[in-house]
């Protein structure tokens, strides 16, 4: 039985949009009205009681029940079969290592970036290929959006008052993709993180932005060495939190399948690629402001006069995604307070 308060709203699409926007319940875009039939369908799909508690979302500490998750999922445009992903993502985010409380209130523009692995990608039509981080794909768009609505409506992260992001960024509307496991020459992210190939997982990453890394040359494919140098130095941009804070950070690269193929074709494993990237993603200590150089030294993030991006290559996360053409990878600088990506199993009902 649903227990959330019933609200009377205008029956017109535009009236609903205006009403819910005025109440502060949206991200500024139109939402689907969470009527009982739609909410019930989401709850029935996961086969749990509406009142079951998944967790409390900081900073407000609002209780994320199955019902509240379903309501926000409907508003975001989710299909019922996306619900298991949302439940796993919420579980992952409320773990202490993710530092969700900090993310919700910081001036940093960080937001949860959801990376999905395993068979559920095909089951829910999640895009892992061309434009996987772009528009046009319902599962990608609405799963990420539902998480944002939950952070707002249950976590209380009201932009400008509680969510103190100085500027924010478009990733705070939605940020979700599937790893293109089928096009990857390496083990998928979830297998690397200790799960089986047959399991479906969501990995939440505290993304503070992302930018394109074009590692190619005109008219010909770049070699592996060139690609590695360009990819590595995309991670040494002054101003990213990895560079200007002294923590053992977890930077993330989304490697397109051509780059991954170029690297694998010269015999490099994922771990070897991480090692080389870590060795090359360095800046001369003399480039750093003195206060920052002092902090890097205090945290042992210096080797042979060079600043280390993080303390060891294993902290880098490599995800293979995107379409079959183009030498465009993406660097995802993370929030930069030592937060780690967290992976949870997605429990699909009846499987």
């Amino acid at each position: 039985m649903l227990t959330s308060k019933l609200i009377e709203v205008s029956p017109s699409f535009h009236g609903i949009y205006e009403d819910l926007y005025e109440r502060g319940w949206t991200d500024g875009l139109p939402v689907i009205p969470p009527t009982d039939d739609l909410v019930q369908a989401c709850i029935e799909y996961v086969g749990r009681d509406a009142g079951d508690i998944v967790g409390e979302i900081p900073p407000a500490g609002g209780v994320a029940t199955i019902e509240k998750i379903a309501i926000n999922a409907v508003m975001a445009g989710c299909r019922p079969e996306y619900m298991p992903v949302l439940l796993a993502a919420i579980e992952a985010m409320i773990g202490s290592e993710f530092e969700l409380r900090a993310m919700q209130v910081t001036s940093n523009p960080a937001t949860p970036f959801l990376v999905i692995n395993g068979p559920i990608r095909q089951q829910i039509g999640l895009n892992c290929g061309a434009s996987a981080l772009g528009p046009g794909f319902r599962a990608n768009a609405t799963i990420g959006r539902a998480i944002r609505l939950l952070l707002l409506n249950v976590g209380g992260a009201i932009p400008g008052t509680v969510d103190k992001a100085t500027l924010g960024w478009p990733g705070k509307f939605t940020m979700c993709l599937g790893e293109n496991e089928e096009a990857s020459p390496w083990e998928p992210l979830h297998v690397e993180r200790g799960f089986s190939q047959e399991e479906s997982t969501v990995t939440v990453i505290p993304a503070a932005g992302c930018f394109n890394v074009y590692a190619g040359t005109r008219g010909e494919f770049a070699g592996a060495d060139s690609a590695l140098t360009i990819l590595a130095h995309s991670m040494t941009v002054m101003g990213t939190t990895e560079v200007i804070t002294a923590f053992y950070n977890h930077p993330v690269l989304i490697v397109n399948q051509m780059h991954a193929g170029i690297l694998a074709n010269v015999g490099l494993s994922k771990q070897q690629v991480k090692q080389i990237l870590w060795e090359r993603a360095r800046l001369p200590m003399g480039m750093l402001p003195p206060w920052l150089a002092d902090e890097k030294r205090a945290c042992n993030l210096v080797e042979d006069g060079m600043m280390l991006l993080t303390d060891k290559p294993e902290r880098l996360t490599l995800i293979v995604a995107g379409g079959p053409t183009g030498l465009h990878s993406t660097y995802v600088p993370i929030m930069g307070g030592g937060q780690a990506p967290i992976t949870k199993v997605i429990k699909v009902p009846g499987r």
Partner: protein
Amino acid sequence: MGGSTILIRDPIGEPRTSDLKLSPRPESLEGLTVGLLSNGWWSWNVVQQRFGELLKERCGVADTMFLDFRAATMKDKGGNLTWKIARGADPYYADQLADKCDVVITGLGN
């Protein structure tokens, strides 16, 4: 959609009611020891020095005690970085402050 209105469900998640209670607050800071705990953000260490002076000048605070949570907990015995931003104070340091201070104020200056 027909009719004059439709019914939808409220998406707001309310917090659980808590039985936690605030510690008793002193009516005055006169003659008390006040602890100032930095949560690690840069600049609070500068602000807290002046803050401590003002507490003595204006509120009659007897003594102040400063603890930089970040410096105190940056590394474990093995030299590994353990401090992470936005964590609460380690109970070891919180207990120290509780033992020695009548009031503790935490803050950030960024």
